[in-house]
């Protein structure tokens, strides 16, 4: 009696199979052929090409991140954003703020996530301190995201390695500056801003590196 497809799949995948069945397959041309077909089918399935998502997919995600609430009609599945989601939105909103600079026409609309960043309560000392708080938070988020990335591939391009090294050197210098006593608040904000910018760049390099291997 021939082996079943289920038994042949077990043999193909190294799962335990009764010795009687295994012995039969070893000597039966029909079963051996079917086993080879199963191996080939798996290889063919794995060889199917990747499917590229529509180009506009990211725009929809970015819009969700920028606007905060989930899309209409789907709020029941995601009734409330966690604080992490809010932090992620803040990260993106901050990035957008760097791009738009301080043009009054580009200032955030009241009630938006970007506005939330702008209106983050400042510590008692100064408005500058409030900016620093938000930047420190962003810096932490980026650090956590960087830590979450898998290890770098064994073979890294020389240019990538150099870029990573330069960015890390820059971060070390900024950290040394931030550790200095009696730093003026505006200088501290500027340093944190630079730090977040460097970390963002470092993350982009690391993701680009991983994108080639994932």
């Amino acid at each position, binding site marked *: 009696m021939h082996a079943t497809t289920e038994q042949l799949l077990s043999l193909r995948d190294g799962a335990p199979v009764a010795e009687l069945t295994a012995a039969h397959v070893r000597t039966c041309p029909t079963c051996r052929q079917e086993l080879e077909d199963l191996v080939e089918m798996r290889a063919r*399935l794995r060889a199917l090409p990747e499917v590229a998502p529509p180009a506009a997919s990211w725009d929809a995600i970015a819009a969700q991140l920028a606007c905060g609430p989930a899309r209409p009609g789907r709020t029941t599945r995601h009734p409330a954003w966690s604080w*992490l989601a809010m932090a992620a939105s803040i990260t993106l909103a901050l990035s957008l703020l760097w791009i738009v600079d301080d043009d009054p026409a580009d200032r955030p609309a009241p009630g938006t996530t970007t506005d939330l960043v702008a209106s983050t309560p400042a510590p008692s000392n100064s408005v500058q301190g409030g900016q620093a708080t938000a930047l420190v938070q962003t810096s932490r988020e980026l650090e956590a995201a960087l830590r979450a*990335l898998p290890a770098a591939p064994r073979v890294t391009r020389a240019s990538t390695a150099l870029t990573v090294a330069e960015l890390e050197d820059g971060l070390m210098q900024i950290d040394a500056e931030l550790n200095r006593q009696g730093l003026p608040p505006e200088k501290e904000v500027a340093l944190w801003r630079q730090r977040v910018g460097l970390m*963002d760049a470092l993350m982009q390099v690391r*993701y680009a590196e991983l994108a080639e291997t994932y």
Partner: protein
Amino acid sequence: MKAHEVLYRGYSRAVFTLASRILDDAAQAEEVLQDTSMEIIRNVAGFRADAAFGGWVKRIATNKALAHLRSAWHRKGRRFADDEAADPAMAGSVQSDVAIGVADQERLARALAVLTPTARAVVWLYDVEGFSHEEIAALMGKSVSFSKSRLARAHQKLRALLAEDEEVQPCMRQPNSC
């Protein structure tokens, strides 16, 4: 390009492929990609550095795709396709379409699309994504034997579809000789 977008560029094709193959519906696959992206962005700060990033992303995407598969909307939309697969006459017409395809990969992709959604999900998750039967059973809320039997049936169906396709194809290529 900002950090989240770079992150997205890294996994979007893999996630969209997984969702497309399981759901056989581009619009739903895009929804899975968006839902997966939002979950990744929300939780990346809590991701453990010692875990595999790709595996974490894959698991989120799989859960989202299977949730779509379970939804009433998907079942309603897929009902006719499933009936066609069960009806030999209708299946024949699908195979004729498959036979028109010239590339082997296209024929396989079409045959995959003819499978029932559950069989397609099991075969894709097991043979391509590398999930174990235990993992698939847990993800689908079914037993290990369910996963094994669906995989075996999916292979039988795929083989039958492709074999019939190969028989039909010479006639399609040389209509005057038939």
